[in-house]
């Protein structure tokens, strides 16, 4: 193990499809207008959520597995340089080739170069968040290389020139009829009589991709796990498209974030129990493939791995946020999130949607990345994501932490205090004294006047307008609690009740 003697450097943030094009509130407002999307999402998230709960409750040691998973990931982060070097040594010793990529464009160039070296202009792809993150398909297209997504949902999204909206089921926002229409419009040779039966649609995808699988010379994949002590890579999937890509081509190029390492073979027994149950709600996914470098006579003989930083080292530098890198991309958090369920994945802008995306994207790009600074606010802080997370990432705490980082980074940027600053100072002045608050509360009946006859305030001025944009505020009560209490107590005293005199204590807190 080498020792790092250089000066601590500033974090270097990630690039690619991690930046939102617009702020979350703006995008969410638009997506909320799509009733079909909300219906599709509501059905899908509730279905997976129920299945997950059922299979998780079958395991008597689920919490022990979560504890182990969380500690293993924490250990990986603490030992990352050492584990990366160990992995590199083992993978290379078994005939694999490792490439390191600082950011999205460097990773794209490496992959394109490796494909060009084979002389091929077509590749088949296994669904992968890492290649989505770096925008590989778009880059390859510019380079004259066609990348065919082979996961059914990714294929649907690719054919529709759309973007994935969920980590596990990227086409979750579309229903069967929409998918049939996409196939009829975009899939060469699709049967014009195609029905919207999912089995029929799946068979159409099989027929469409079969020839590609059997003739492809190059495949590109991601990896779910990498084992440092043996140099082994693992891909977890359902459809067999993964096995096709990982087994039949001559060249296999895998792109993986540096955080996906696990120290040893034994750790796989933990994660292979946590991942399938948390993601699809199955006891086990249909297929898992593991390969350690090159196996002579079996599978690809040219095996490459691109190890990707792209902001991961920056996320690691945030002591409080670094556990976001524990994420195993199961998507359990998004299936339980009330915000995700209504806005869908596109509202988050980045490749990583939902609660984990709301912390991971700004950690990878830096919170000062303009549109990502709204992501930590895209949450009700209800904590359902923390309960669902198989590796116990405390998403609500990190959301709050990132909000404070955002507020701090905004401070000093503006010359004049914002409405929020003024409001907060005023609130602090009023709330720090019971007497002051009591005086202000006498103004409550004014609010009732503003509310009008239906007893609802529909529009507040200034910064508070954001709150009333999508909700009404009920009219304030006719009198304050303080007022009511004083009157009640008077009554009690008249009836001979013994109460403590609090009027004198009222100011002691000030």
């Amino acid at each position, binding site marked *: 193990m080498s020792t790092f003697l250089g000066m601590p450097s500033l974090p270097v943030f990630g690039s690619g499809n991690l930046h939102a094009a617009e702020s979350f509130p703006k995008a969410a407002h638009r997506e909320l207008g799509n009733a079909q999307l909300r219906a599709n999402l509501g059905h899908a998230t509730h279905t997976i959520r129920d299945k997950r709960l059922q299979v998780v409750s079958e395991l008597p040691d689920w919490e*022990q597995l979560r504890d182990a998973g969380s500690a293993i990931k924490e250990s990986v982060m603490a030992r990352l340089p050492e584990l990366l*070097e160990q992995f590199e040594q083992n993978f290379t010793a078994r005939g694999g080739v490792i490439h390191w990529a600082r950011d999205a464009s460097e990773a794209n160039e490496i992959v394109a170069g490796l494909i060009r070296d084979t002389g091929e202009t077509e590749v088949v792809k296994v669904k992968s968040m890492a290649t989505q993150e770096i925008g590989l398909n778009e880059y390859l297209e510019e380079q004259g290389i066609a990348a065919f997504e082979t996961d059914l949902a990714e294929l649907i999204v690719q054919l529709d020139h759309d973007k994935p909206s969920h980590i596990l*089921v990227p086409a979750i926002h579309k229903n069967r009829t929409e998918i049939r229409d996409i196939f009829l419009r975009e899939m060469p040779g699709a049967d014009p009589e195609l029905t919207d039966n999912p089995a029929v649609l*799946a068979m159409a995808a099989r027929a469409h991709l079969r020839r590609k699988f059997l003739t492809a010379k190059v495949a590109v994949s991601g990896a779910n796990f990498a084992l440092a002590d043996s140099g082994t890579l693992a891909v977890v999937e359902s459809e067999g498209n993964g096995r096709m890509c990982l087994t039949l081509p001559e060249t296999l190029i895998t792109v993986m974030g540096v955080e996906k390492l696990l120290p040893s073979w034994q750790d796989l*027994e933990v994660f292979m129990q946590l991942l399938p149950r948390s993601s699809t709600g199955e006891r086990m996914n249909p297929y898992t*493939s593991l390969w350690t470098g090159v196996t002579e006579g079996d599978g690809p003989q040219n095996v490459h791995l691109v190890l990707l930083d792209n902001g991961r080292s920056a996320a690691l530098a945030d002591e409080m946020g670094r556990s976001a890198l524990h994420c195993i991309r199961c998507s359990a958090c998004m299936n339980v999130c009330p915000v995700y369920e209504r806005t869908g994945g596109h509202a988050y802008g980045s490749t990583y949607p939902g609660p984990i995306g709301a912390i991971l994207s700004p950690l990878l790009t830096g919170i000062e990345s303009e549109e990502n600074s709204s992501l930590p606010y895209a949450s009700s802080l209800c904590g359902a994501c923390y309960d669902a997370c198989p590796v116990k990432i405390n998403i609500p705490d990190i959301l709050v932490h990132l909000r404070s980082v955002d507020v701090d980074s905004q401070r000093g940027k503006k010359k004049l205090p914002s409405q929020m600053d003024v409001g907060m100072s005023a609130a602090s002045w009023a709330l720090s004294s019971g007497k002051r608050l009591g005086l202000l509360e006498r103004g409550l009946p004014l609010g009732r006047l503003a509310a009008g006859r239906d007893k609802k305030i529909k529009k507040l001025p200034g910064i508070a307008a954001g709150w009333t944009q999508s909700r009404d505020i009920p009219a304030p009560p006719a009198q304050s609690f303080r007022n009511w209490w004083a009157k009640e107590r008077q009554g009690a005293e008249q009836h001979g009740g013994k109460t403590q005199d609090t009027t004198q204590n009222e100011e002691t807190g000030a």
Partner: protein
Amino acid sequence: MSAREDILGRIRSALRDAPVAPEIPREYRATSELDQDALVHLLSDRLVDYKARVSVVAAADVPARIAELLADVGSYVAPEGLDAAWVTESDARRRVDSAAAPLSVAELDGIGAVVTGSAAAVAETGTIILDGSPNQGRRAISLVPDHHICVVNAADIAGILPESLRRIDGTRPLTLISGPSATSDIELERVEGVHGPRILDVIIGR
């Protein structure tokens, strides 16, 4: 500076607070208490739940069961190291595959079924593990033909995943199979059989 040095340097710099790797609590189950009858029953149940077809037979009846399943199949492929007693020596439909003399992908695509053994199985999750041993062969042969007939020895069934993985060499080319190929990408409705074998027949021999 190379990308490698640069990235490792950034990571070391990010860890300048010197976090300590925690002890890993491994209080989760490492073994199960089920006897062989219970293991066979649980594995069958879980595989059937995934829409695999399961037959439990005496070890001596495995060849007969394979023959039944192959009755209406055209040609089939067998790995070189498959138990010679499992398939009849005179079977003209049989194609033999090995790393030294592999069938091409196009040839495999024209073959109806494959017969393999297995390295291990996990009852609780309905999982069968292939590790590329001679009786299981190259990964491609259990992937391209549409019908996979897989023989599991009852003695190789473990109750839970850690027991099985601890018996396996992780550096072999491994495939974990839990039911036939499936997708739930369209409205989360499960459809069996997308790109891998659409039919999985498991014969448990005891």
